């Protein structure tokens, strides 16, 4: 589903964020991307969402080489990926419903279908009764769940999350992770960047550890070797 082959990323300021990263994530797999801040976690996710492009190496998403996606095809490419952010990136001038509906409106669905899917997504994150609320009136944890509902509303094959629990207390963090697990149960491929090792230890999923732009440890390879 996601495949990195010897990927390097050097920013214009000369900082080498990734140096020779290779791994692959199978369809339906759920993995955590861990490592200290500045290790390149965010850069790796940005390469998947085509927010950045690799300096060297190949990034394949859905068997599609991202280097072959021209600028004007990026929107269509992103429509098949759900992205969850640490700061939610909700639109505060519109309702919860409209926020979750955004990718569906972009996708050109019929209003009835949009309503159905938005409510299904809100139901999955347990906030069905908040559809008419303004996001600003919700707690941080609830806002993050709205962000997740938006990411999954268009039923993407892949969901990537960058520090989705960064601002949450341990209890809420676990709740969010359980939510991701439920999506994984229905076949969604997930890659979640987090530095919350304690939380990751609680959950039994594959772990990719990035240190200084390189994969320092991959729990899958470790178990395969054992």
């Amino acid at each position: 589903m996601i495949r990195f082959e010897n990927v390097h990323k050097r920013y214009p300021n000369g900082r080498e964020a990734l140096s020779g990263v290779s791994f692959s994530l199978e369809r339906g797999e759920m993995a955590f991307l861990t490592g200290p801040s500045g290790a390149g976690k965010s850069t790796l996710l940005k390469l998947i969402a085509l927010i950045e492009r690799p300096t060297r190496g190949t990034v394949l998403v859905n068997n599609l080489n991202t280097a072959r996606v021209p600028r004007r095809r990026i929107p269509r490419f992103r429509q098949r990926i759900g992205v969850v952010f640490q700061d939610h990136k909700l639109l505060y001038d519109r309702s919860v419903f409209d926020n979750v509906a955004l990718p569906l409106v972009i996708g050109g669905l019929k209003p009835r279908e949009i309503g159905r899917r938005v409510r299904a997504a809100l139901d999955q994150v347990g906030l069905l009764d908040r559809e008419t609320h303004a996001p600003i009136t919700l707690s941080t944890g609830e806002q993050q769940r709205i962000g997740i509902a938006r990411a999954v509303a268009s039923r993407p094959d892949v969901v990537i999350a960058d520090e989705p629990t960064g601002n949450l207390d341990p209890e809420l963090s676990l709740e969010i992770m359980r939510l991701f697990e439920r999506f994984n149960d229905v076949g969604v491929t997930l890659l979640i960047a987090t530095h919350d090792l304690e939380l990751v230890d609680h959950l039994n999923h594959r772990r990719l550890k990035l240190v200084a732009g390189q994969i320092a440890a991959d729990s899958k390879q470790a178990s395969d070797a054992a």
Partner: protein
Amino acid sequence: MLKRYLRLHLSNLGGAIGRLFRQPVGSLLTVLVIAIALALPAGLKVVVNNADVLSDSWEGAADFTVYLKMDVSEQAARDLAKQIGERNDVADVTFISRSEALDEFRTRSGFGEALDALDENPLPHTLVVRPRGGAIAEIEPLTQALNELPETELVQLDTEWVARLRGMLLLLGRVVDIVTVLLGLAVVLVIGNTIRLEINNRSTEIEVMKLVGGTDGFIRRPFLYLGIVYGFAGAAFAAGLLLVALVLLRSPVAALAELYASHYTLSGLSLEETLVLLGGGAALGWAGAWLAAARHLRAIEPS
């Protein structure tokens, strides 16, 4: 597919109108600036239209007045009038005998008593010749023919001032064109700048839209509609301003026309011209928004 497009466009239009009302004072100021910029060329156009109507009604003044020599008898003058009237470039010939001329002069000029002091009538027989065509080129041969008549003392053509007026109107028309282009450009820039600020204010929203897969067209469309709504609202206000100006001018113009024993009334923009104004405003708004969107939307990328 078509229904989906229509729905998207309608919701964008509604959103744009809603956005204008969300910041009523700021929007109103922008709309007023656009309205004034559009009302100026439209108002000048109205002035030119009215002047054209006036100068058309003065076209009748382009008659030849042929003063005959004093020794031409009345019968000879009448024959000559008939003869000239048969030319195909002549529409009408009026014969004014010297006695008629004297009577008219007596009653009109107020010099009646002075005329009585003269021994004989100093006025010649006169022919007023109305040419068929109005253009200078058309009446040129007629001018020459009238001048070459042995009976002619003097030919006067009262068209020079009409020609001058026409020339001035032509010039004014050209000025209106230039002003229209310049102020149209100003409207494009004003709206472009307004949309640029709007894009900057909404950069977070644009970034999020790009992140969830919004195409350039999808992201640009609300801004285009905002430009169109600004332009259209400005044009509508401009039409309103013109209407108010016209109402304010109507009664003084009527009073002035009465002094000239005329029933002349000001006319405003025709329906067609009003539609052109509204459509033009919307088109300028679209153009301004498009320029701003093309320049600034691309720069906002998720990071």
